[in-house]
């Protein structure tokens, strides 16, 4: 009747940061899309902001271990990623939603998430429960047995989030997860993020400043593959207010955070231009 607690359940983690990058460089073709980035992330929701082409997707892909870094070190869950490493153990603990989330039109939601659970090596006896839990978490229970071609864009996005959650990841990488969600679904999604943040390192790449301000514990702003700003969302708003007081230097935007975003970006680019 009474269960013996296993050693693995009480084992402390042996690493300081879930994600740690030092001087990370990632090449896409000949272009250095991530250029010397330093990161140290642990549990919490980390927002990754930046203009289009700043290297957000490349960075997320490198963290998902699908792109090999060209230089620098990347350490995930205490394991340094290098060419010879068997990535399976690390990947079992990663959930990843790519920017272009492709799916199989004939599959039902449940079949698709089950297939992903198989790909993620979830033990066969845990699969039905894990799949049901993931589908419930994104609020698609009533659609679980519908074919994916019948779902709307927002629902597909939520299936994407469900497949990322199905293996109970320690690191969750979401690339543009709120694209196509309506305001109500975005609120639910933020609540889900806050719940996950207690024991998961969540990295959300987005270009919506308001998402970051509402749901993230901290913000990173990158431009041209480099880290431009890192702080809590309030810092971003403070930068916006400060910039607004200086005539001419203020960023454009409707909220303080948006003004902060554009002001920081503009200041960084001017500095870069001056250095050249």
């Amino acid at each position: 009747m009474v269960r013996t607690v296993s050693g693995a359940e009480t084992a402390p983690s042996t690493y300081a940061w879930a994600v740690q990058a030092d001087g990370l460089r990632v090449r896409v073709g000949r272009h250095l899309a991530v250029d010397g980035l330093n990161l140290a992330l642990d549990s919490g929701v980390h927002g990754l902001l930046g203009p289009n082409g700043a290297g957000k997707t490349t960075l997320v892909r490198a963290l998902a271990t699908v792109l090999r870094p060209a230089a620098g070190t990347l350490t995930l869950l205490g394991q340094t990623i290098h060419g010879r490493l068997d990535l399976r153990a690390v990947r079992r603990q990663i959930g990843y939603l790519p920017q272009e989330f492709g799916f199989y039109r004939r599959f039902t939601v449940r079949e698709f998430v089950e297939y992903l659970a198989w790909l993620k090596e979830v033990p066969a006896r845990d699969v039905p429960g894990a799949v049901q839990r993931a589908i419930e978490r994104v609020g698609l229970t009533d659609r679980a047995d519908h074919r994916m071609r019948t779902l709307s864009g927002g629902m597909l996005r939520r299936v994407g989030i469900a497949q990322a959650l199905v293996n109970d990841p320690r690191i969750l990488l979401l690339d543009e997860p709120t694209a196509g969600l309506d305001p109500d679904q975005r609120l639910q999604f933020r609540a889900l993020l806050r719940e996950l943040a207690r024991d998961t390192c969540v990295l959300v790449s987005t270009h919506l400043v308001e998402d970051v301000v509402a749901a993230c514990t901290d913000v990173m702003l990158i431009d041209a593959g480099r880290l431009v700003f890192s702080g809590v969302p309030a810092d971003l708003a403070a930068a916006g207010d400060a910039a607004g007081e200086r005539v001419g230097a203020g960023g454009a935007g409707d909220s303080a955070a948006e003004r902060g975003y554009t002001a920081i970006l503009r200041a960084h680019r001017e500095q870069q231009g001056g250095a050249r």
Partner: protein
Amino acid sequence: MSRAPSRHVAATWLRRYAGGGPGLPPDVAWAIEVHLEVCARCRARLADAAGRDPAINALLGRVHAHLQAEIPHSPRMPATTRRRATVASWIAPALLPRLIVTALVVLTAVGLDLVSAEAGHRLPSLVLLLAPVAPLVGVAVAWSSGQDPAHELVVASPRAGLNLVLRRTVAVLIVVIPGLTLAGLAVGTSPARWLVPCLAFTTGALALGEVVGLHRAATGLALAWAVIVVAPSLITARPSLLLDSGTSPVWVAVTVGVAVVLVARRSAYASLPSGR
């Protein structure tokens, strides 16, 4: 970390700890907790002690009775629909149309062979000429971002890699090779002449695919074979020396050599090409 403890928790302490710790000084409780984290034997003894405590048993009994009453009325876990997920674990998406194309091509070759034999021409057998590259049509889609909408999810999963590619390749061969054997029997060609070249081309496509992408590699090899061997044989009306049964050792050597390269560079199948 897991140093072997020299002493174990006394049975009396363990009993009190199991009973929720009345009369257990906090420092002792902490010490017991620390010890339990590293000692599987004492965890088992704790489970045993808890099982003998009447208060705990009464509590568990109440929970049990309550659950027994609740379970029949609670929502059922939906029955698992593993069938499609199991099929998907072997068969690459978009494979079926490819297999149909392969079947049509082979049937056409059989038809042309029979017609030319009827007419008394002494053209080399088309089935024999096409057999070595016939599986490539299906193998090409085993690992392809263009043909698999969820390719990025598959590549990022723990199962990604040569094993999964081989699994999907085997699924193709299981269908194509018996089909080719039947076609060969119909026109009087023995599998001994094309089977090893067939395996050599499949392995070759997989190995070359590690460098240029599987779809491109398979297409390139099939085209090369058509230009270098099929066309000259048809023009000169003489069967190619490459498909003589005497060349088998050469094909075996090629297959083995290519397989070594395939395994050595297998990590290419666990990441996206960095050229994108």
